[in-house]
């Protein structure tokens, strides 16, 4: 190791702990074209069915009710400055003008501007078959197989699966994550461990609104609306949920293992536990004891075909113990999807996905029944038109059963269809 390299490593470590990375100036690169990405994603949408979840309904898609219109879905800037040769920062700033707004006077107005991810990453150059990296800041835990585009975006469909829609809206953390990758013969193995703060409210929306399929992603300023007229809601609960609230001062954690066998398959398994204290409420935000397992499989049967699948099973609980040891609000949740994508020479992708989802309510069902069952079918076509313009068209159809809809005077069984045409203009 040369003295310069040693110095760079020391500086890299310093950068991670928040100190300035002034030496290694040769490697600092802040505003070159490769450090900045930006886009505006404009949609024409047509949807039917029940009131949208962002307007206080139980709707399952981004645009709910009888909506026809043009929307700016998201404008975003991704800045990835290089602070040293092995240290980068990664910041996603987004503007979502029609972000969920709460009608509750007690809530803060939801900000259209927000920071989705913001972290510093240290990735030393591998000197053996064991590679490692560290990141610190705000990020989505690595669960989604679908969000492999720049700035945590999807690349096969406009609308992510139910599982990854939920990750995007309610599973955003601030913490420290370490990753180790090793090559054992022909098999690649990876281990990721993270400790985090915030995200104590994770699964509030999943419990009271249920699963949904949409691409509105959380930022530090996000406030997600609860459905109106919920009969069993505690009085101290605000009508919005803030995914980045810290309520109980406890650390959460997640772990992930990766397996890359010598065939075109990748397998990953995650366990997440926010270790929330279910009996604490602060500023209208309750702590929820939320945990889940997620299994992901990516398979390439041929170089132009991809099969993706994830299965998630989890549970959450909030409130005091009521009956049979269950807490006042306690559910188990499950979802699975299977997605197939065909890639064409011109860069276009045709994808079909089937989602199934369910919530089992374990307590107080007479007063607050959060049972849910449903499935969805998605067909999407995405295509780059020019270097700076992508086009996409998508249909999502969701059928679901949720007894809580009765409180809003609705039939528990609902179906919803959303058609979107998207133009994404990017740098």
């Amino acid at each position, binding site marked *: 190791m040369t003295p310069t390299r040693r110095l760079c490593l020391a500086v890299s470590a310093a950068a991670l702990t928040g100190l300035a990375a002034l030496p290694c100036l040769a490697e600092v690169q802040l505003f070159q074209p490769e450090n900045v990405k930006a886009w505006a994603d404009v949609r024409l949408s047509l949807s039917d069915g029940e009131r949208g979840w962002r307007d206080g309904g139980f709707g399952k898609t981004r645009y709910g009710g009888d909506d026809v219109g043009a929307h700016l879905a998201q404008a975003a800037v991704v800045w990835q400055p290089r602070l040293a040769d092995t240290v980068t920062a990664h910041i996603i700033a987004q503007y979502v003008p029609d972000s969920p707004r709460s009608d509750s006077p007690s809530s803060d107005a939801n900000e259209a501007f927000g920071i989705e991810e913001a972290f510093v990453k240290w990735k030393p*150059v*591998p000197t053996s*078959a064991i590679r490692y990296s560290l990141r610190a800041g705000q990020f989505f835990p690595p669960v989604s197989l679908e969000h492999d585009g720049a700035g945590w975006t999807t690349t096969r469909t406009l609308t992510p699966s139910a599982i990854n829609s939920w990750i995007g809206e309610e599973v955003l953390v601030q913490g420290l994550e370490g990753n180790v990758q090793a090559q054992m013969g022909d098999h690649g193995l990876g281990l990721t461990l993270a400790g985090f703060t915030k995200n104590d409210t994770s699964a509030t929306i999943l419990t009271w609104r249920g699963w949904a399929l949409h691409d509105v992603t959380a930022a530090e300023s996000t406030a997600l609306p609860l459905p109106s007229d919920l009969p069993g809601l505690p009085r101290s609960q605000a009508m919005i949920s803030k995914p980045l609230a810290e309520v109980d001062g406890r650390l959460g954690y997640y772990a992930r293992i990766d397996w*890359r066998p010598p*065939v075109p398959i990748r397998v990953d398994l995650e366990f997440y536990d926010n270790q929330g204290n279910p009996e604490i409420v602060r500023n209208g935000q309750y702590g929820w004891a939320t945990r889940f397992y997620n299994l992901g499989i990516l398979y*390439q049967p041929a170089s132009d075909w991809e099969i993706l699948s994830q299965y998630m099973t989890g549970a959450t609980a909030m409130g005091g113990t009521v009956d049979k040891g269950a807490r006042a609000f306690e559910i188990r949740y499950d979802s699975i999807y299977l997605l197939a994508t065909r890639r064409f020479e011109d860069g276009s992708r045709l994808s079909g996905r089937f989602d199934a989802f369910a919530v089992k309510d374990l307590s107080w069902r007479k007063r607050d029944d959060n049972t849910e069952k449903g499935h969805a079918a998605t067909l999407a076509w*995405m295509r780059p038109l020019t270097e700076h313009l992508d086009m996409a068209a998508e249909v999502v159809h969701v059928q679901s059963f949720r007894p809580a809809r009765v409180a809003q005077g609705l039939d528990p069984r609902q179906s919803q269809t959303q058609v979107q045409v998207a133009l994404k203009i990017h740098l």
Partner: protein
Amino acid sequence: MKAVFPSLIVLLAAPAVQAADLSVTVNDAGGKPVSFAVVTWTPKAGAAIPAAVKSAQYVMTQKNVQFAPFVLAVPVGATVSFPNQDRVNHHVYSFSPAMPFQLPLYGKGQTRTVTFTKAGTDALGCNIHDSMSAYIHIVNTPYFATTGADGKIVLKGVPEGAGALKVWHPLMDAPDHEVAKALTAGKTNAPQTFAVKVRARLTPNGSY
């Protein structure tokens, strides 16, 4: 083309030795041609690598956030250049025992070189782009070539005598990713065919 060039030089440089061409086809178990297989002929008596073969141009390009070619065969002593044709910076490295090295961040239009002094295989990576992967196979013989899409190569000017014909591929399901045949090269040589098992790999999609 790179493989033909050094072999031609061998032909010109060693007129006293009787030599003939040796053509080799590499197929997979299903009979489909295998590309990126490195075929080598190593005479039992050994063979010096002429200076002109060592000093030929060997290039591993970075383009579209990929290495090209996926497999590059070079003789011991060769210098490989690593031009970056991408808009983005790359940080090329290898921790393979044959020749561990790293080329810290460099950008479009710039190039770096590495000289490979030991036979073996270098697996290449980029510390910025995990999906980039390629191999440099360093051989200790002047008789080598890499198969194209048709799975065929011709080793020019193979000298008469006993030797080993080897096929190496980074994803071959065989010890050291290599299979070998003992042969005696003559004034003419019968075409050789190998049926090898090569694993499929995940192809990176890049980002949009």
